[in-house]
């Protein structure tokens, strides 16, 4: 009913053509030095992981876990409290607002109030996650079997009804989702290190500055191993112990004190637009920000995002068949999995940081990182669906690329395209954040405004970034509705603003 009016192939051609058109405007230069030499140096370091700096590695990993546990726990707790009231306008509005600002931007703002304290890191994770948890938990609670609640006596209070007959039914699902979110939290926590918190990103950056590539390799190996084994070491029964240990560790951190009244100053002075604060016309101030910072930032963000989206699509198209047994063979599938898991578990921001060390500052590292990371996520999902389909195929079905081309690709094209469109918004959001690494996307302008203590301008730019992602979300939603191909489970998670399904 849909595909007649909106041929999927034409949508793909449109996106690819747009990316090609934007290519000349993208800054893809290999800056200054010889990237191949840098790559060789790093490569040899990475092949010889060096665990000698075990103390620093251990500390960075422990703090990464601590920030993730505390942030996710606080976010889940707040989300659980808001979930029963999610259908009410103000609560939903707050949730949408907090979750549409990226963790790194939250951290930048919070730092102005709380300094480089553990609270900054915990809240930077907890705030956006609370908005996501509230939405997902409220969905779970709405889907609960209503019969136990109906069996209660007529005078049972709403709170008792909720605690006995509703919440326990949704609890197993909530825990599964929290665990999954914790995986995202581990990524967020690691990346927070790049802006100064004492987590993995910070330590990785230090190792790179010192040229200790072996140690950098060691810490990345530990990190990927830790993420791959989350389900083994993070269990429901010991979650409370983890939380206590992590809080104790965070409380033991010392941080530079902030002057008293920092919050009040932030709210009543710093973020108040300068013309209102000092008197003067608002429009010239605003138009200056819009024309010389917001618009160039948005253009650069979109250039990065559109090219990265098409790259992600390419990576997914090549990666998905590689993890289907009947296509790639048992061994090939194993290799494909390892590659995709690595690209998925390293956050795109961290990948961009790594590429930046090789290629120097330009849009190239950001585009590569976004394309590879998001492509791996899409490939994983599409490939898994392909594996399911091929298991139920007729026994005389072909194998290898024939199977892929004739049987699987035609069936998987619709979900593949829907997933790419879902990731589009996330890619755009993360493209903006990549600015913190020095690419001229919106994050760069936000970071500069914060560095110059023009927090009022930073807020305007942040709002511009929200407007941009909201716009993309609307277009992507319309396209998806016309094209079809998503399953309810996938769309629900994606709409909650997922880091990676």
């Amino acid at each position, binding site marked *: 009913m849909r595909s007649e009016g909106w041929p999927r192939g034409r949508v793909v051609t449109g996106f690819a053509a747009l990316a090609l058109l934007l290519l000349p405007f993208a800054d893809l230069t290999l800056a200054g030095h010889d990237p191949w030499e840098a790559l060789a140096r790093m490569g040899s370091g990475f092949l010889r992981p060096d665990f000698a700096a075990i103390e620093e590695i251990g500390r960075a990993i422990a703090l990464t876990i601590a920030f993730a546990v505390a942030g996710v726990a606080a976010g889940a707790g707040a989300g659980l409290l808001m979930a029963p009231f999610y259908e009410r306008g103000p609560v939903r509005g707050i949730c949408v607002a907090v979750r549409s600002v990226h963790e790194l931007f939250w951290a930048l703002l919070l730092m102005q109030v709380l300094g480089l304290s553990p609270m900054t890191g915990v809240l930077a994770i907890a705030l956006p996650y609370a908005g996501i948890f509230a939405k997902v938990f409220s969905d779970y609670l709405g889907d609960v079997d209503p019969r136990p609640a109906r*069996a209660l*006596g007529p005078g*049972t209070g709403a*709170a*008792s009804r909720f605690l*006995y*007959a509703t919440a*326990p039914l949704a*609890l197993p699902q909530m825990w599964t989702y929290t665990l999954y979110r914790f995986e995202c939290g581990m990524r967020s926590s690691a990346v927070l290190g790049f802006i100064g918190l004492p987590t993995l990103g910070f330590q990785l950056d230090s190792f790179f500055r010192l040229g200790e590539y072996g140690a950098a390799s060691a810490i990345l190996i530990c990190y990927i191993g830790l993420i791959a084994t989350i389900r083994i070491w993070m269990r429901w029964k010991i979650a409370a112990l983890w939380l206590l240990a992590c809080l104790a560790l965070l409380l033991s951190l010392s941080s530079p004190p902030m002057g008293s009244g920092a919050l009040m100053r932030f709210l009543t002075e710093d973020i108040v637009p300068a013309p209102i604060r000092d008197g003067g016309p608002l429009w010239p101030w605003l138009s200056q920000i819009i024309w010389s910072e917001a618009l160039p930032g948005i253009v650069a963000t979109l250039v990065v995002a559109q090219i990265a989206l098409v790259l992600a699509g390419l990576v997914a198209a090549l990666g998905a068949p590689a993890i289907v047994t009947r296509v790639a063979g048992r061994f090939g599938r194993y290799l494909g999995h390892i590659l995709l898991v690595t690209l998925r578990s390293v956050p795109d921001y961290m990948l961009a940081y790594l590429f930046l060390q090789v290629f120097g500052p330009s849009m190239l590292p950001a585009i590569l990182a976004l394309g590879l990371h998001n492509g791996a996520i899409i490939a994983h999902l599409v490939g898994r669906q392909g594996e399911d389909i091929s298991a139920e195929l007729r026994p005389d079905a072909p194998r290898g690329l024939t199977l892929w081309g004739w049987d699987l690709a035609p069936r998987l094209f619709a979900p593949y395209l829907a997933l790419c469109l879902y990731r589009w918004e996330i890619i755009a959001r993360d493209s903006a954040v990549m600015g913190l690494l020095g690419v001229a996307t919106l994050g760069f302008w936000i970071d500069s405004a914060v560095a110059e203590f023009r927090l009022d301008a930073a807020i305007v730019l942040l709002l511009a970034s929200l407007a941009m992602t909201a716009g993309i979300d609307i277009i992507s939603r319309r396209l998806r509705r016309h094209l079809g191909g998503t399953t309810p489970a996938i769309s629900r998670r994606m709409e909650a603003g997922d880091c990676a399904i």
Partner: protein
Amino acid sequence: MTAPLLDRESVGYGSAAVLSGVSFSLAPGERVVLLGRSGSGKTTLLGAIRERLERAGSRVALVPQEAGLVPTLSVLRNALMGRLDDHGTLYNLTNLVRPRARDRAAVADILEPLGLAPEIDRAVERLSGGQKQRTALARAFFRGGSYLIGDEPVSALDERQGAEVLDEIGRRFETSVLALHDVALARSFATRIVGLKSGQVIIDGPPESLSDAEIGALYAL
């Protein structure tokens, strides 16, 4: 004669009436059994009776057909749910975290004759079908009151257990209305049998006055 609970009423979901023009009254001390093919309106009638009794302020204990238990909670906590409306939120919340010794003892006494005492701390999702049904019965027994409404409350129990449970119901509740499918059990338990067919009451009387043929006609196509 007490005032009728339902007076020539039609009850149903949405536009389709499940019961049409049904009258029903209930005298204290009666043990009513509803008989009829599935889809004849037993569940709907039980729901309507429960609603009217509660509206009139009576305390009603309920054993729904699908038990309505919370699978992740223990037998003890599921039983405690029978009395949530007797206490405030704070009491219920603390009782959820750690049930009070007094409540635990009261539930244990109820579980004993039901043969569920050893399972008191087991999660309901780990129980067999019959054990789940007995948990739902325990919840109703713990609730207590003058009325019990049960929709196939012994369907998952064997004949002997079922008879014992019905005896227990007779001892604990002054008045009860049960839907059953076992005619022999119904005859031995009921003081009054109500037969439903296609949403209408076609038999209503003490079991001695009803022949097997009359009851059998309920199940005929």
